[in-house]
């Protein structure tokens, strides 16, 4: 890829990311407006029946419900940008406040497990690809096919069954023990859900790395390195590994999105007080504004992760960096 191509590629991705966010906003606006009835009928179910029509009209004017739809949409967009994401039905709090609070807990879990699964997946995938066709490869491959076939929440059930019920080593859920022992127990509470999350995301990275390694090993420069008589270790760490890492690292954003989606299930299973459990509760309570807020924040996170990967690419790949300069 040439420098100009790369620049226009990043710009294109930026544009498509923004467009996707705009689309999500439009969708949630339209869905909210397409619900039967409006804010007035809901709010003034008792009061509105007795209120004089002028008062109702005045209230509608005050809230902005009498404006034409495009203008309402514009106000909605400005509200979103200002951090006014609506109020949760169930919690009675601003959606933005709720999400900000829960996001912290999700990130505590999400970042370490993304890191763990990336490192492990790259290691195992590289090993498997390097020794393609060997017993190690077959064993790893079959094991990870199995891991992938089992949904992450089943691994969560298994973890709770083994480590909490049979061995009584780790707590089955929650985030802290009774008051007085709060601080040291956070790690113990986070251990099981974090590892489950990482374990569920492991096969994705593994396959990608293994495939990338296989492709790299077929390249001419590997053959050239062998012909020059380099040691196998030098070929692995000096030639094969750095080149096969690239596609895996660019896909790290997809990986992040994958883990974020998985966290809904894992947090529910382990009663971890993050965005995932909030989603589950919002679904149970049919809390529309909250669910929309979560949808928007998820979209934002995924788009940001995508863009970060695009921008990091030249930093990792010297060929593109030199092209840019």
């Amino acid at each position, binding site marked *: 890829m040439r420098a100009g191509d790369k620049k226009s590629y990043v710009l294109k991705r930026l544009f498509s990311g923004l467009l996707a966010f705009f689309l999500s906003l439009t969708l949630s606006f339209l*869905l909210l407006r397409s619900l039967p009835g409006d804010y007035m009928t809901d709010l003034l179910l008792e009061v509105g029946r007795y209120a004089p029509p002028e008062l109702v009209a005045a209230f509608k004017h005050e809230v902005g419900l009498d404006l034409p739809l495009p203008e309402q949409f514009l106000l909605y967009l400005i509200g979103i940008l200002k951090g006014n994401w609506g109020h949760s039905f169930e919690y009675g709090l601003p959606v933005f406040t709720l999400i900000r609070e829960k996001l912290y807990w999700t990130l505590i879990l999400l970042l370490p497990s993304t890191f763990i699964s990336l490192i492990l997946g790259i290691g195992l995938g590289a090993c498997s690809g390097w020794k393609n066709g060997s017993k190690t490869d077959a064993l790893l491959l079959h094991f990870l096919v199995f891991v992938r076939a089992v949904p992450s929440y089943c691994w969560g059930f298994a973890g709770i069954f083994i480590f909490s019920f049979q061995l009584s080593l780790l707590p089955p859920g929650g985030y802290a023990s009774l008051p007085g022992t709060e601080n040291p127990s956070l790690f113990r509470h986070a251990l099981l859900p974090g590892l489950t999350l990482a374990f569920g995301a492991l096969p994705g990275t593994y396959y990608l790395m293994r495939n990338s390694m296989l492709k790299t090993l077929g390249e001419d420069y590997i053959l050239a390195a062998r012909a020059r008589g380099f040691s196998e270790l030098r070929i692995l760490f000096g030639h094969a590994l750095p080149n096969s890492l690239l596609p895996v690292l660019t896909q790290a954003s997809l990986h992040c999105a994958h883990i974020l989606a998985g966290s809904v299930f894992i947090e529910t299973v382990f009663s971890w007080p993050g965005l995932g459990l909030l989603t589950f509760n919002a679904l149970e309570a049919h809390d529309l504004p909250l669910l929309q807020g979560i949808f928007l924040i998820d979209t934002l996170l995924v788009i940001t992760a995508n863009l970060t990967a695009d921008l990091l690419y030249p930093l990792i790949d010297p060929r593109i960096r030199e092209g840019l300069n």
Partner: protein
Amino acid sequence: MFQKPQTFQIFHMCRKKTFSAALALLFFYLLLALFAPWAAPYDPTEINGNPCRAPDSEHLLGTNDFGQDIFSRLLWGSRATLLFGFLGTFISTGLGTGLGVLTGYLGGRTDRFISGCMDVLMSIPQLPLLLVLSIYLKPGLYLICIFMGLLGSLQQARIIRAKALSVSTENFVYAAKALGLSDFHIMGRYILPSVFPLTLVKFLFGAQHYMLLGVGLSFLGIGDPKLVDWGQMLHQAYSAGGFALGMWNWIFPPCFAMIGLSLSLSLLGYSLEPWLSPQLRHEGKSFSPLF
């Protein structure tokens, strides 16, 4: 390239055995789903015993918190679960293949436009979107399958498009064009058969994916609460505090049933891959992951 031939042979043989075993398992599930009304000892929605009974000869897997027989629910649940998988993947691979062949073969402005739209749509995370939509539309089984299939077809289309694009530059396609055949004829008779192996493999992996996704959505409590499927069983077990009570006979049966089905579908997909695409067989690149 740098392969040891002997090990690869064993590897290959093993995969053939895997294929037959996976197929047999899938047939077993299909038969169970088909004959659920006769195989199940009780009505899955009726209360026919004390609640929370441990497994015994009368109730093979015990009863849930309402007193419904878990074994019967498991058998009946296989129907909805299989439907999730196969209907979902049918829609997504069908639509994805159509779109992929169209954009990959036609190229030019049509391709740029449709691919651009798909890129934008694919940046939206799918699961949260599914959750939001499901709350608005209060969907039943079929609507959930349609949603999943529509959203999933984007990814399929991208993969099929790449394949169709490479096929379109082959000589036989140029020859067909030189003969003056119409675009639709070329797409139907030349491009579609070339991408078909890929489509078949994607169909199987899709069946696994949508089965798990559908069960996952029911586990989160989405969809018709009266419908019996494995995710709904897990949801009920979770809501009734199955963990705190240690009621593992509520949780493990649907889990194991799901794992078996999921394994059979994915092994079928993996074992078909080298058989259907000869370039994989020749290069000895086993199991190229396609997702």
